[in-house]
């Protein structure tokens, strides 16, 4: 089922700034979308609005083409996994998973045996065999997360919303559960929206990454596109490592404030500016300047050279071979591959 947001706005009573500000977004049926951004960007609020847990003041939420604005959360049949699992502590794992089915009105409620069978299936699917009789506090974090997921899936929702579900897990478990979640998404044909502040997690899991800031969508698209064609300096900083080099533009040239960095030609107007560049895009020009670059470490074919210019240390990633020099003397930095910015927007791209 597709989820469509049409100019959604939510304003908290006490504050003047909307926490969700005029957001429109289409999540196609069967897609995996990640909402990323710094804390306070409105990601979780947006997710709660889609689920019907929080009200919104403007716009419409459409699920499968039908407007659900006046539908209560309980009527939307959406699976939701909370950041801190939100398991019912006084119920066994089996009772937790079966909760959504057991509270249905008598007419539509499956029989006890059917519920038990469904719970057993889900426990298998979540790789939690023989855990049905345990209580949540007896499980590890990763197991609790899977119980929460099983509970969300028990009622057969077609839309799954995940609110930073891996935040509290250790990195190894996180890695495992990620791959397995993506697999589950494919297998069950779900439409999944994931909130996370981890850009790698988003890039790895989602088809579409939606980057949010201050309640608005800054850019959305495949992770690769956000990395390679960031809409503004914020997107670029958020989607990968960035080196910022301050300077100013004069007579069609960007002049870096630091020595030993080569100027870059640009057609923009004179004034202060800075260049943002990924460490892998910086080139070392041997013999072009007066700084020395030292090979700090090497991981496979990628080596990292460090060079210090006027107390600022730059790390430069390059492809190295076993006979690469440990010190490259008298070099300069070439930053032509970077992007020129003034304030929060790009200037005409460096030629």
């Amino acid at each position, binding site marked *: 089922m597709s989820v469509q947001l049409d100019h959604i706005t939510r304003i908290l009573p006490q504050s003047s700034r909307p926490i969700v500000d005029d957001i429109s977004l289409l999540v196609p049926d069967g897609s995996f979308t990640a909402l990323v951004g710094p804390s306070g960007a409105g990601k979780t609020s947006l997710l*709660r609005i889609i*689920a*019907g*847990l929080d009200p919104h003041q403007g716009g419409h939420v459409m699920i499968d083409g039908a407007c659900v604005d006046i539908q*209560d*959360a*309980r*009527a*939307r*049949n*959406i*699976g*939701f996994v*909370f*950041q*801190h699992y*939100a*398991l*019912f*502590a*006084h*119920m*066994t794992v089996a009772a937790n998973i079966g*909760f*959504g089915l057991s*509270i*249905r009105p008598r007419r539509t409620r499956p029989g006890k045996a059917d519920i038990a069978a469904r719970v057993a299936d889900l426990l298998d699917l979540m790789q939690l065999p023989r855990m049905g009789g345990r*209580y*949540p*506090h007896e499980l590890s974090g990763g197991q609790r997360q899977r119980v929460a997921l099983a*509970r*969300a899936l*028990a*009622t057969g929702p077609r839309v799954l919303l995940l609110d930073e579900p891996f935040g509290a897990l250790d990195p190894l478990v996180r890695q495992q559960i990620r791959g397995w979640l993506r697999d589950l998404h494919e297998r069950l044909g779900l439409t999944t929206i994931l909130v996370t502040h981890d850009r790698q997690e988003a890039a790895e899991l989602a088809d579409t990454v939606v980057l949010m800031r201050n309640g608005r969508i800054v850019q959305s698209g495949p992770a690769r596109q956000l990395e390679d064609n960031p809409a503004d300096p914020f997107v670029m900083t958020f989607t990968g490592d960035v080196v910022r080099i301050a300077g100013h533009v004069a007579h069609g040239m960007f002049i870096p404030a630091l020595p030993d960095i080569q100027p870059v030609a640009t057609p923009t107007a004179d004034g202060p500016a800075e260049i943002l560049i990924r460490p892998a895009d910086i080139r070392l020009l041997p013999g072009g300047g007066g700084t020395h670059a030292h090979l700090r470490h090497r991981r496979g074919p990628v080596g990292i050279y460090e060079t210090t210019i006027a107390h600022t240390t730059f790390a430069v990633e390059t492809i190295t071979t076993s006979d690469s020099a440990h010190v490259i003397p008298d070099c300069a930095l070439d930053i032509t591959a970077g992007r020129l910015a003034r304030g929060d927007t790009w200037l005409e791209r460096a030629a």
Partner: protein
Amino acid sequence: MTMRRAAFPIRARWQRDALPGFGLGLGLTLFWLGGLVMLPMAALIARPWGEGLHSGLLAFAHAAHDGRMLSALGVSFRSALIAALVDLVPGLLIAWALARSDIPGRRLIDMLVDLPFALPTAVVGITMATLYGPNGWIGGPLGRLGLRIAFTQTGIVLAIMFVGLPFVVRTVTPVLRNLPRDVEDAARILGANRLQVLLRVILPALYPALVTAFGMAFARGIGEYGSVIFIAGNQPFHTEIAPLLIVIRLQEYDTQGAALIGLVLVGISLLSLALISLLRRHLSRGTQGDA
């Protein structure tokens, strides 16, 4: 080998404890507990046998047939039980208002809840007797409707309820406040209506606290004296409570009889508290640690 094994954990625990002077503190506490609680209890248990085994047994045999004492014990336990049970309802509502709502005067209510703790119980008793008496503000109109509260067991229950209410509020409020809100959201999203959220998610999480609150209000109610005697009317066999009968026996210089009632009171109280704590442990099996 075995000695090292045995010695090591003890030393390790001493070193790990954050509380300074824990050993000394524990010793003193146990000493005071012994002096203040266990010693009087031992005296109470020993008292009926003070005039010899035969006399003690005779006293017990008498007591078993002493209708006045049995009905006084009955009144005390029945009233305390009803009062503690009924207290759970307003107690839970007040706790809810304090923990969840933003009603005006919340701080004032918060303060007023503790008032029954602070008031001398006799003041409570006199106030209630005045309010609910045949000519009182509430007792008068109710009396014309044919409802009598003062000098009946209803009056006793009301007095005990007043004293027991803070126990419920103070026990339930923090638990309710710490109940994660996302658990309720989760239930809603899974399709639960408001009643189902309340009955299947919130109340079960509160059961251990409610049982604890009930136990405390009940224990307090059994021993309640000052606030009850003014409103109870104190008719033997009808509205006479056990603590009052102890005082009456003492005034009659019947210390053995008084101690006997005390002993029965203590025995049943301990048994009730043990049952309550058993029930609480059973209910809180899903949550870690105590509740």
